[in-house]
């Protein structure tokens, strides 16, 4: 099973270059090749997910070339990482499958490299290793944003490039300082030595890492590039970007934070940052005319929510963040794919005219995506929202919960404006690429089925028992069941 961990990273890395070369003549070959590779990747990650969930202590450590962890670089997959892995590969495959046939081999190569970087980031246990994969991720996403080479994409990519490079420099400085202090690069070992660091050192490293990962994760002051990059990129890329790339950056940062910076001050800072990100992006998102930009703001908002959820030390917070992540990935992926293709077909991204050519499947997809994004009861988004509020109140941050309310309502309004316009349009509905329809139907199906799986898995009662729950803590049970008591 360890070999699968390595394979999941290496396969797309090599395939990226192979598919680029294969696609030099005609790009059909590269598309098929890429599809096959991503499909195998998805199957591998599902196997890993199954294995980790079934195994006793829920973790695998893959070691390279025989060197044991303190010295060698290792891949470390626990239950949270495996979920990220599974959904990352799912979204990668889905967005590629829904991509138009007209995309060149450059596109397919870059997508494969992006997937490789993502898998590497999720699994790596060595901090410099994280830096390298992080760099690959940034570089590939710069390239993907600039794919169309038009004025808008170039401008977005330039801004993204400059901010990204500064961030990576900050990150390297941080890693250098950590290495200077601890002498080792393995996450677990650094975590053991972290408590002895002095207050000032901790603050400096925290600041550097926050900027390093924050730019890519889209935390408030640093996410200015996000609102230009996502609309400029082709819709599969923007689906990937807002679906998984920023989430993985956030996950990495929070993984490091929970290992090295355990004292409550840092989680308070992050909570505050999360709230501000959510508030600002919802407020500005409310006035957007451009549809894809509107979705970008909603992604930044959800990132704020996830940041708040993950920064809470309790398990419920962790579980809320996880649910919000899965829900956002599925809903935003679906929304970006359908809205992006619709605006490409009708040629205009304004909210009133983008849905001229909305087909029935587009309408269903946008409705399902919109409702689950907003957390309409049966969806996981709802469970995530409830858990988030309960986690916030249990951790004593009642004021934060109260501040959330107006902005969540704002988001409900502008997303429903988008959904309302699509449903109201009487488009002719011709379908450009069949793959996209399949992806939309599959995602809608997952959105509908997943809540049942999650709730069934956590309550373990045969039927939905409505008269109160015999298990004392319905939600806590859900959290502990899924996490199997992992320390992250």
């Amino acid at each position, binding site marked *: 099973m360890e070999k699968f961990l390595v394979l999941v990273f290496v396969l797309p890395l090599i395939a990226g270059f192979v598919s680029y070369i294969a696609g030099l003549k005609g790009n059909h070959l590269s598309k098929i090749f890429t599809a096959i590779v991503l499909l195998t990747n998805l199957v591998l990650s599902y196997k890993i997910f199954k294995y980790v969930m079934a195994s006793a202590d829920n973790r695998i450590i893959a070691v390279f070339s025989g060197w044991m962890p303190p010295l060698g670089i290792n891949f470390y997959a626990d239950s949270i990482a495996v979920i990220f892995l599974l959904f990352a590969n799912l979204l990668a495959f889905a967005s590629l499958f829904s991509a138009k046939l007209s995309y060149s081999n450059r596109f397919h190569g870059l997508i494969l490299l992006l997937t490789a970087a993502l898998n590497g980031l999720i699994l790596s246990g060595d901090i*410099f290793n994280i830096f*390298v994969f992080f*760099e690959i991720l940034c*570089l590939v996403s*710069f*390239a993907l944003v*600039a794919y169309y*080479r*038009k*004025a*808008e994409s*170039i*401008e*977005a*990519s*330039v*801004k993204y*490039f*400059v901010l990204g*490079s*500064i961030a*990576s*420099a900050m990150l*390297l*400085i941080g*890693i*250098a300082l950590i*290495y*200077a202090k601890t002498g080792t*690069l393995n996450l677990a070992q650094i975590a053991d030595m972290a408590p002895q660091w002095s207050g000032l050192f901790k603050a400096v490293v925290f600041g550097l890492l926050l900027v390093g990962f924050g730019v890519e994760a889209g935390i408030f002051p640093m996410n200015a590039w996000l*609102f*230009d990059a996502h609309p*400029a990129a082709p819709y599969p890329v923007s689906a990937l970007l807002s679906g998984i790339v920023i989430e993985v950056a956030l996950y990495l940062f929070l993984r490091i934070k929970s290992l090295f910076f355990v004292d409550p001050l840092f989680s308070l800072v992050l909570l505050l940052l999360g709230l501000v990100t959510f508030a600002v992006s919802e407020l*500005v998102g409310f*006035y*957007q005319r451009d549809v894809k930009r509107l979705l970008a703001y909603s992604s930044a908002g959800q990132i704020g929510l996830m940041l708040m959820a993950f920064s809470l030390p309790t398990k419920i917070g962790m579980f809320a963040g996880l649910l919000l992540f899965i829900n956002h990935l599925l809903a935003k992926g679906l929304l970006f794919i359908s809205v992006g293709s619709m605006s490409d077909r009708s040629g205009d991204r304004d909210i009133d005219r983008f849905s001229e050519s909305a087909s029935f499947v587009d309408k269903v997809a946008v409705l399902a995506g919109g409702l689950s994004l907003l957390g309409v009861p049966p969806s996981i988004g709802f469970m995530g929202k409830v858990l988030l509020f309960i986690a916030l109140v249990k951790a004593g941050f009642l004021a934060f919960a109260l501040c959330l309310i107006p902005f969540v309502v704002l988001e409900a309004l502008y997303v429903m404006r988008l959904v309302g316009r699509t449903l109201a349009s009487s488009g002719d509905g011709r379908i450009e690429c069949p793959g996209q329809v399949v992806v939309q139907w599959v995602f809608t199906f997952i959105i509908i089925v997943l809540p049942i799986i999650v709730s069934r898995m956590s309550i373990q009662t045969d039927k939905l028992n409505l008269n109160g729950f015999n298990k004392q803590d319905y939600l806590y049970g859900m959290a502990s069941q899924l996490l199997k008591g992992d320390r992250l």
Partner: protein
Amino acid sequence: MNLDFYALSIFLIGAGLAGIFLNRDFVKILVSISVLESGVNLLLISIGYVQGRLAPILFSQELKASAVGKVVDPVPQALVLTAIVIGLGLLAFGLSLAIWMAKNFETTDVSELKRLRG
């Protein structure tokens, strides 16, 4: 000895950052990014440097027998190698961006890029 290396690297990092923010021309910004990169690499190297020791080339004459006490810390050396390669990759991509920017905007002046806002 190490201290002046640290000072130099901090100076270089500061210069790089200042260059990025003050320059209007994109190519100048690229140059200052690479200055920043080199500053960081210098910092990384200087962490591993021990006064009076040799470079960690294991097959060289002096270290043939045993390199235990005589060599500087090899790990940062490796890190810097990859960091430099990455810096190169970034620079290459930046230049291609500059070319395309010139094509689309007829100028590489970053302050011209004002169309996407709000």
